[in-house]
């Protein structure tokens, strides 16, 4: 359910589907036989109590963790294992719970780093910083500046990210993920640690990303208000098992979800 008055985004076929995936670390089963899909253009929320396996799920989609069982089908291609850089080149980008920015670099450089997979000029021209290398730098700078304008972080371009406040760091990280022009954007608790105003800003950005760029989004989030407002469909995990899957309204009323996670209003 979207906030009323927002533009309609057409939601298409299945972009990514997770089929019967299981993952364990040593003796701990993080994810057990989970299956769900994500449609093109939608915003899919993954919710559940701590330790439910949500981040592990994202890590699997990303190619970080390799499930012992099950497959992922992305854009028609089915794989049981993916390397992280394959995911990147395939059009999957993500942000992290604990901001994973490159602390030694400025905000601008971090976002420019996100363009790396689109840069192809040879080593020779890079040595000279001329010709094709320079043209490429300028061209990608244009695109990065669009993202900077979109996220309203112009003033902090040249600030080393380690010095930025948490909320801005999260925005820069979002910018870096957007720079990859992904088809699927995975957001791991993008609102964590934010106050109400920052959450509203971030929600607006997420919606705009989905509207303007048509990016499909999967997000892990604990704030139920955000989940209700932003998402088209929700998957609920608990102890590594999927316990519900449907629209936000369906989830709100689902008894199993209420017992495991939501609780009842007193």
């Amino acid at each position: 359910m979207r906030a009323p008055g927002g533009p309609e985004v057409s939601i298409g076929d299945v972009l990514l589907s997770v089929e019967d995936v299981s993952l364990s670390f040593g003796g701990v089963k993080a994810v057990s036989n989970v299956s769900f899909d994500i449609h093109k253009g939608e915003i899919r929320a993954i919710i559940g109590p701590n330790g439910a396996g949500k981040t592990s799920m994202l890590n699997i989609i990303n190619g970080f963790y390799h499930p012992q069982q099950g497959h992922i089908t992305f854009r028609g291609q089915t794989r049981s294992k993916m390397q992280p850089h394959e995911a990147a080149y395939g059009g999957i980008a993500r942000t992290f719970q604990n901001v994973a920015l490159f602390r030694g670099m400025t905000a601008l450089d971090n976002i420019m780093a996100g363009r790396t997979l689109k840069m192809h000029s040879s080593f020779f021209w890079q040595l000279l910083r001329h010709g094709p290398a320079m043209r490429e730098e300028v061209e990608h700078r244009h695109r990065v500046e669009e993202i900077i304008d979109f996220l309203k972080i112009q003033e902090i371009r040249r600030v080393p990210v380690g010095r930025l406040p948490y909320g801005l760091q999260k925005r820069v990280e979002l910018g870096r993920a957007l720079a990859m022009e992904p088809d699927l954007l995975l957001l791991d608790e993008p609102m964590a640690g934010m106050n109400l105003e920052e959450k509203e800003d971030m929600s607006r950005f997420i919606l705009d990303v989905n509207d303007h760029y048509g990016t499909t989004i999967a997000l892990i989030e604990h704030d139920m208000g955000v989940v209700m407002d932003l998402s088209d469909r929700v998957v609920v995990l608990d102890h590594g098992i999927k316990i519900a899957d449907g629209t936000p309204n369906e989830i709100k009323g689902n008894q199993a979800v209420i017992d495991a996670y939501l609780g009842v209003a007193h």
Partner: protein
Amino acid sequence: MIHLIYQIFIDPFVQMGTAPDLLVQTLWEGLVAGVLYSLIALGFVLIFKASGVFNFAQGIMVVFAALTLVGFHEHGIPAYVALALTIAVMFGLAFAVERAMLRPLVNQPDIILFMATFGLTYFLIGFGELVFGGDPKVMIASQLGLPKGAVEIKMAGGFVSLQKIDIAAAIIASVMVAALAVFFQKTRVGRALRAVADSHKAALSVGISLEYIWVIVWFAAGLVALATGIMWGARSEVSFALEIIALKALPVLILGGFTSIPGAIIGGVIIGVGEKIGEFYWGPLLGSGIETWLAYVIALVFLLFRPQGLFGERIIERI
């Protein structure tokens, strides 16, 4: 070509078979060298276990301790008094290092502390050479009551000669290892050390004083260094060349893991024996002196198959 294969894969084993006494001799030499490497590695493990600092200066501490002991004796101080004074000096060193280096760097990433120990190493090299001079010195082995001479065992058509000092070294090292293992497991201070190694913050919150622990640990490492220096100096001589040899403790740590006391022993023995056997039987093929790098290459090959070493824990990175 066939000749080469014979030389590499067959001949050394033939040699081992036809002169088993030489083989045993080489194995023994390797064992002794390995025990000494493990003593140095033990010093590393102590400090790493309790503070997460990889003390590159452990090698120079061995040299420094030995030089201090000999230096005191040269000035006419009787052997055991000199020993006591040296122990005091090592305590002073631990205290100074904690104050001047560890405390200011307390929250820095490990790699910064590692590099700081480089600085400490070079400082001690310069300081040691300034105070004691650069010439090699003779360890006061007999004055300390360490045995001289050799034990000869007849076997397999020849004989094997075991230096008494080497036997003493092996025994003393075993005793030290056992004592340290008991110390860590059973005593209150040992438990505190293990707590600090796990988490500084948690240890602080239960009232363990980090500075106190660090001084204790560096002092303990200093004692181990002193013992190593005495043993090693007694076998050859006391000189700054020992510092480079001490770098060999690094492959030992790779094999044995950075936090395991038994690992340091096993790693040391593997490296020591591997080196000596390699040098004696395969060395002449390549041109002698392969001892200088064989240990590192062994460790490197090991790392490729098991990046966490023999005893280390698998590092699972979580994001």
